[in-house]
């Protein structure tokens, strides 16, 4: 048995950081899905005296209103992961859709989409997200809309470049010679080979979106106070200078999750490279 394990070769994409990323991300996803089953304190309820340092009972202490920081951090994963998933999926849908059409049809449609992309990318992302969120007013939904507005152009560019490259391959010409219709060309012969970089990028972006969503909440443009959102929690902790533990929980959560998704993305890219080079 041990011999068989020793002989089984580790795939080259599975490095220590990638394994770590898988573990961390899996932990947070499980935590988000099962938070109510852990028997933790209610995240919104005052359960103890305020500003208690970490103890056996309250692992990460309590905040200025006497709520359990550990419980709030775990529950915060539900919000952060949900918002990140929605934002990335929406940005991919909009961006990749527009980009694919731009690359496939070219001409004025391409020019129009790509100029819109250029204009959007000309703004610093945080500033643009702030501006959109501020215009729409505070609230988690509006923060999500703002993040999608910032993120879609990246995918549009990526997808367009990918389509332009695949479009010129010989198997596409062969499909034209075989009488394929335009929609068949785009969906079957081109798009099916365009997803790899999108998948890798999207994985890495989940971490970035979590970070930026937290940043919006930190400055009061995302989740509003009682919600156990990591950015908002850090913001509360920032005013309690001597109670470091309030910001530590959510801060550490963001750090691990962002790193985890980056490692995961790296591993995914290596895996895809290995597959495509075969």
């Amino acid at each position: 048995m041990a011999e068989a394990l020793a002989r089984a070769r580790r795939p080259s994409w599975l490095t220590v950081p990638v394994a770590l990323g898988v573990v961390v991300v899996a932990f947070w996803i499980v935590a988000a899905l099962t938070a109510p089953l852990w028997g933790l304190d209610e995240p919104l309820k005052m359960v103890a005296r305020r500003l208690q340092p970490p103890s056996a009972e309250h692992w990460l202490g309590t905040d200025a209103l006497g709520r359990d920081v550990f419980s709030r951090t775990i529950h915060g994963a539900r919000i952060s992961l949900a918002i990140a998933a929605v934002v990335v999926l929406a940005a991919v849908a909009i961006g990749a859709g527009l980009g694919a059409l731009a690359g496939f049809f070219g001409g004025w449609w391409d020019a129009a989409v790509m100029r819109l992309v250029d204009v959007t990318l000309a703004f610093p992302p945080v500033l643009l997200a702030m501006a959109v969120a501020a215009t729409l007013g505070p609230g988690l939904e509006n923060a999500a809309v703002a993040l999608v507005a910032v993120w879609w152009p990246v995918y549009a560019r990526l997808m367009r470049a990918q389509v332009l490259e695949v479009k010129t391959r010989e198997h596409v010409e062969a499909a034209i010679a075989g009488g394929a219709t335009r929609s068949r060309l785009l969906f079957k012969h081109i798009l099916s080979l365009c997803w790899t970089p999108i998948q890798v990028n999207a994985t890495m972006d989940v971490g970035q979106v979590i970070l930026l969503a937290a940043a919006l909440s930190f400055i009061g443009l995302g989740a509003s106070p009682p919600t156990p959102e990591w950015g908002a929690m850090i913001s509360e902790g920032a005013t309690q200078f001597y109670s470091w533990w309030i910001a530590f929980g959510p801060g550490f959560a963001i750090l691990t999750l962002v790193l985890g998704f980056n490692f995961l993305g790296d591993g995914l890219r290596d895996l895809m490279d290995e597959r495509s080079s075969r």
Partner: protein
Amino acid sequence: MTEPALEIADLRVAFPGGLEAVRGVSLSVARGEVLAVVGESGSGKSLTMLGAMGLAPRGALVSGSVRLKGEELIGARQARLRALRGDRIAMIFQDPLSALNPVLPIGEQIAEAIRLHRPRMGRKEIGERVLDLLALVSVPDPKRRAAQHPHEFSGGMRQRAMIAMAIANDPDILIADEPTTALDVTVQAQVMEVLARLRERLGLGLVLVTHDLGVVAGVADRVAVMYAGKVAEEAAVDPLFADPRHPYSRGLLGSVPRIAGGATRLTAIPGAPPRLGAREPGCAFAPRCVLAHAACAEEPPLRPAGSGAAACWAADEPAPEPEAEAHGETRHAVTGAPLISVRDLVKEYPLGKSLLPWRAAERLRAVAGVSFELAAGETLGLVGESGCGKSTLGRSVLGLIRPTSGSVTFRGREIAGLPAAEMRPLRRHLQMVFQDPFGSLHPRMRVGEIVAEPLRLLGEVGPKAAAKAEACLERVGLEAGFARRWPHELSGGQRQRVGIARALALEPEALVLDEPVSALDVSIQAGVLNLLADLQAELGLAYLFIAHDLAVVRHISHRVAVMYRGRIVELAPADALYSAPLHPYTERLLSAAPLPDPAAERARRRIAPREPESGGAASGGCPFRAACPRAAPECAEAPPLLARGEGRLVACWSPG
């Protein structure tokens, strides 16, 4: 024979996991000798040379012995190997462009190669040496050329620069790995001449690694044929070509189409070379061998046979009679109403955009007014060197490229410039087979799906289409089981068969074949060519067969059109064109084509070209004027394609 300068003994190159790619190769070369190492892709011929020079890929285990003038290289220190490489032993590769630094002048790069090994040589001395070297490899005007950058050199000139760099320090051994594979025939002939002359002038030992038997026939002294990581046969060049002892060598020679004609059926070697790691014990060639018998379960050693040595138990048996030439009749011209007729076809590409919006950009004429007809059941071969516009022409006929002007009619119906929606129903009659058997198949579709894909045009999907696809696969010699496989599981020849099956799915009347066999090994190529001939006989297909290989074109075509810079310069029945070419360019092409026959190859006289050429059509006059040995004042006006004799057309003022 003199003492060998390079002696390789029992060289093995293995990769982790027990994959042995080179399995005990012994070769030797003396100074002033040319050894050709011939084999198909995957035979381990390049890896043998890389391993010998200490350049095997990372992770490869090299064992055995490699002696350079008595000095052992296997296990030598890296520093010593570095000092020897480029000094005593040098190597040139297939692709000169990637081996040259694009931002340094050629002369500077050659000087660098000298300086590395002769640090004390003076600046002036090096400069003179560089010019001498360039002259030695026949680069005209060395002084001006030395100051130029790689992009200003044509492919053949770059390869000469690479050779100059390799011989800069007067090495004992020069290893040339497929030195002319990326080059056109006329350029290939020149580069081979340069290499042959170097052997005489400098007395270096030359190792020519190649897949092309024709290339080595005239230059090599000895030939080693490699198969599956071993030397299958080694012999002096004349006996090897005249009386090959190993069945694989016989198969290789039999599968090369001959430019001299006699359109007999090629003897294709069945099957494909074994994949690395999937090798059965015993003789590696046995599964494909017609002579295989019980003894072949044991791997035969290389032992004396005839005047050389062969690794075959049956090396002393007489060669079996080639199979009856049932299809061996010569191809005669096919007459009848034209199926496709092309008139004055022009395709221009803008060369960038003009800065002034009211001034049209300069244009490159890829196809400059071409007319021809293709009858049902006929093969028209289209030959020309790279960049002559033959592929553009083929794609324009199918409407894959929209021609700038001119007409293409199919059964009398104009199809040039037809909108995509109107062209689509016509596509079932006109299909295409592509050059690249890897790129032309969708990597994420199964073979069955790929072949069934065009059937959507007829609205056929599902089990009915799948059944049809399997029938098509069987027609091209692939069992129905292939339908469930992925393209990456197939060999090059099998993939090309899939491409042909896809083109046949719609039961077309005409096929445009764009270099369908140029990416395949010769033994595989022969099988595909035979298949195409059979399909034509069975289905009455018309072929527009585009290729750069003159022998292949002659083998399969009824009529042949020669293209030069976007024009057809000569069009004639195949036999007439090859036996008595009328256009000077055709003459030059034919004189440059390598012959797989050592005696004939050494005896022939080549027509020396006058200048290297590139690009599309010249601005005015005969496009071949500048390079033509018969150029005359009237050539300032472009000659039209005029009839000379039965069925022959020539665009020259003073033909033949």
